[in-house]
């Protein structure tokens, strides 16, 4: 063992992918291929370890999200009307198209795993690049959704500044530009890299940069897609906005005037637009966001919603409210500040106070935001995977990383599959 040090510079290197020479026994390498980290005995052991590790990681991810799903469940149980009302601000079309995009990307990912197992390197790389592009489209559409809401002031509780009388304030910051900026920078970076590698004749780099450029551009494809869908006859969102404006129909001065009008007559739901929002306790239609500026029919709305037997939380609230009502002889202390109405027993106040609507958007941003971060992380690892695939690192005995990242990608997809109905389809 005197030669140990010679073949074994530092253990940091000893553990890198190549398993050579860590113990100075030459014959050792024969049954230890280069892709097998040398604390493992067999490729199967390595694969099983990685797979189990990935599954456990996914368990932690689910639990991580579960905290937010719990928060969602709690607050929705407490304030079903807020959730139903606010959900109308979400654009179902954009949500649906993103769901489709992610589902498709899951397909390409699963297919990529298969190709890696069959050693179809080229096809595998194509499929990974497609998955990446889908991820980018998703983010592009999300950018439209986010920036649109930010402009309208539909923000987390503390920042919430939506004004139903003026839903599209003019002259705010251009959020879309802010979101797009880093992606534009990345695109330009990849482009420069592409050109340089072409000029220098670095074939491999050129080959990698090509699909990456497509991937980057997909983001703007997503932005374009989002813009088109947003303007092309949006069903509910602007309907509710209009309700919010009850009597003044001054769409003309909106920033995105063009977008507003497209779909306003399409939907039966929109009849609400033509009835002053506080005229009747909205039997057929939901109180929508319009109720937000309307104090008078809150109790009625509450009663109506509470008549649905599933809204047990609300019944409790109603009872507490009525009890309070009795005790104070009808003179309910009206807490006008948005501040201190945390609990069920809180006094009767607006069903859809801005701060409460804000909680919906808090949860919306927390959940979709953390999900988007996972998409970004997924993009990072998929790029790494793309490079390795193009380097032909994988073969029928060693395709673990493709498999694991595939699992991760499916989970990210799956979480969205839950988010979509819970956020967009609850009205």
């Amino acid at each position, binding site marked *: 063992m005197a030669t140990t040090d010679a073949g074994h510079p530092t*253990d*940091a290197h000893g*553990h890198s992918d190549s398993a050579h020479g860590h113990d100075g026994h030459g014959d*050792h390498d024969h049954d230890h291929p280069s892709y097998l980290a040398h604390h493992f005995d067999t490729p199967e052991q390595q694969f099983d370890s990685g797979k*189990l590790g990935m599954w456990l*990681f996914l368990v932690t991810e689910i639990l991580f999200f579960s*905290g937010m799903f719990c928060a969602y469940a709690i607050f929705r149980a407490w304030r079903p009307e807020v959730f139903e009302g606010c959900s109308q601000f979400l654009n179902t079309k954009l949500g649906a198209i993103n769901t489709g995009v992610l589902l498709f990307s899951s397909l390409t990912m699963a297919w990529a795993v298969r190709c890696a197992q069959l050693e179809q390197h080229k096809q595998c790389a194509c499929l990974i690049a497609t998955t990446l592009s889908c991820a980018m489209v998703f983010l592009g559409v999300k950018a439209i959704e986010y920036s649109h809401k930010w402009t309208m002031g539909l*923000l987390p509780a503390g920042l919430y500044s939506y004004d139903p009388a003026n839903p599209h304030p003019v002259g705010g910051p251009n959020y879309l530009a802010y979101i797009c900026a880093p992606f534009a920078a990345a695109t330009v970076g990849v482009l420069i890299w592409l050109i340089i590698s072409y000029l220098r004749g670095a074939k491999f780099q050129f080959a990698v940069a090509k699909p990456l450029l497509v991937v980057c551009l997909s983001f703007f494809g997503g932005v374009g897609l989002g813009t088109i869908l947003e303007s092309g006859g949006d069903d509910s969102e602007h309907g509710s906005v209009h309700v919010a404006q009850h009597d003044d129909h001054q769409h003309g001065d909106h920033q995105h005037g063009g977008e507003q009008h497209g779909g306003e007559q399409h939907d039966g739901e929109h009849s609400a637009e033509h009835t002053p929002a506080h005229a009747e306790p909205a039997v057929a239609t939901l109180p929508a966001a319009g109720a937000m500026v309307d104090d008078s029919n809150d109790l009625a709305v509450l009663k109506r919603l509470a008549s649905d037997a599933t809204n047990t939380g609300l019944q409790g609230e109603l009872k507490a409210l009525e009890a309070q009502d009795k005790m104070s002889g009808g003179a309910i202390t009206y807490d006008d500040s948005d501040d201190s109405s945390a609990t069920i027993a809180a006094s009767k106040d607006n069903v859809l106070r801005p701060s409460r609507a804000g909680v919906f958007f808090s949860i919306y941003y927390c959940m979709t935001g953390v999900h988007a971060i996972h998409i970004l992380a997924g993009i990072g690892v998929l790029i790494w995977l793309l490079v390795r695939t193009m380097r032909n690192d994988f073969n029928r005995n060693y395709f673990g990383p493709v498999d694991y990242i595939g699992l991760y990608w499916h989970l990210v997809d799956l979480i969205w599959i839950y988010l979509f109905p819970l956020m967009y389809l609850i009205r």
Partner: protein
Amino acid sequence: MSAGSLRSGYEVNDPGYPTPQENYLTNSKGVLSWMFTLDHKRIGLMYLIGVSVAFLVAGLLALGIRLHLLSPDGALFNTGFFKWLAPEKQPNDIYNQVFTLHGAIMVFLFIIPSVPAALGNFLVPVMLGAKDVAFPRLNLSSFYLWVAGAIFFVMALMASGLDTGWTFYTPYSTTTDSSVILATTGAFILGFSSIFTGLNFIVTINTMRPPGMTWFRMPLFLWATYSTSIIQVLATPVLGITLLLLIAERTMHIGIFDPEYNGDPVTFQHFFWFYSHPAVYIMILPAFGIISELISVHSHKRIFGYRFIAYSSIAIALLGFLVWGHHMFTSGMSPMTTIIFSALTFTVSVPSAIKVFNWLATMYKGSISLTTPMVYAISFIFLFTIGGLTGLHLGTLATDLHLHDTYFVVAHFHYVMVGGTLVAFLGGVFHWWPKMVGRMYNEIGGKISAALVFIGFNLTFLPQFVLGSRGMPRRYATYDPEFQALHIMSTYGALTLGIGLFIALGVLLYSLINGRKAPANPWGGATLEWACTSPPPYYNFDRPPVVGDPYEFGNIEWDAESDRYVKVEPKRKVVPSETPAEKPAHAGE
């Protein structure tokens, strides 16, 4: 610790094994070889140093608390030194920050990583007979996440301190202007460090077991680590999201926890304790594992009720998820809920008690050697039993209403966390120290430290039970003069405890300089770590280990001539000349 402080070139440690020229401490040199090491043993040692430093810092803060409480109006932080140090702060504010940082550092930086990350990293692969953990790189990154978390805590300390208590309860934590964001970011990062360690161990134990190492041949320490890892993986993400939401609450006012924005602070408590009650089992389960090993090895007797101990660890891990509400009996849950949580709390003490009975039964009629680790182990049993039983007082609704948020709770959890985990940790460090560094320490010094820790600890915390049941609330900088005598006792106890701990540190460090070289098996253990040399070689085993019964002591005997334990079974005797030089080290592959 530098590799150079230990000489290489050991003589034969165990007649059955070839002479190693190199061990994991000497096989590569230089600071970088440590910083980028992927060797689980080195990472374990680095963790050991890290958590010890954290423990030292938090321990000094604890002494600060105790010194302040010497007088009813507060002592230490009223002195001129603190006026000079922090002129803009009131003594009471300083007190709040000191106890918060004490708690937060002890919990997040010391106790949670202490046994699993420090000792566990060193021991899990060796005990298992594997070359390393399944994901060595992830292991190293866990360590650096720990370092990053520690840096955040230091930054919080430097910025404007932290005064929320380690529990970060809202709404105070959303309104105070101390550095909540820095500290919670630190705790968030530490959470991921802990998750990755747990994940690594689960996979390692599942897939890296060598042939012959069946589940029921695993040492109980591995069972304990496995159950701990389950909790780490299942509970910690919830802490992560809770802290993230708290950060969002402070920055954006998302209104989930903050009543100002229609949030609900009790939801925070639920989220927090959903993690933190299981987390107390992250703290104690590995300690159970250590004690199972220590009691059995130093009694030279087969562990009593192996399967009961193994399964009870898993039972604790799972039941521990159902009882978090017992921290919130006074937070305004419905009476029905409190009753259910109270009942579930009782069930979780059953598996803990099973373990205590098993340890006692193991010692019964064993041939006990009262070594330092054994002294620590015995004091563990005593102290943990008190801690666990007082937990039942707290789990009982009627008594908890009186005792909640008093010194009784403080005493309870110190009996389980210090009397339990810390004492077991020290016992474990003394037990495996010869394996880690290859040196024996001074037994007398070790026993003195154990005795002082035991006496000092009881002197510190027994009076606190009395204080609490007489109504002394926790987290107060000043108190009614009638409590002073007990507080003074407690402070003297803390000083004694501190001296004991410093002696323990001194004894261990001194062994590095002047310790006798450790044989492979100084205690007569039968688990695999005693089958490799002390310290182990880089890949732990120069030849694939022969997996046997981890608690079969019949064929291990003290050999007075060579001053070590040897295997007496003839079938494993290998003549040194037979050691085949031409055979690859990992013949199993």
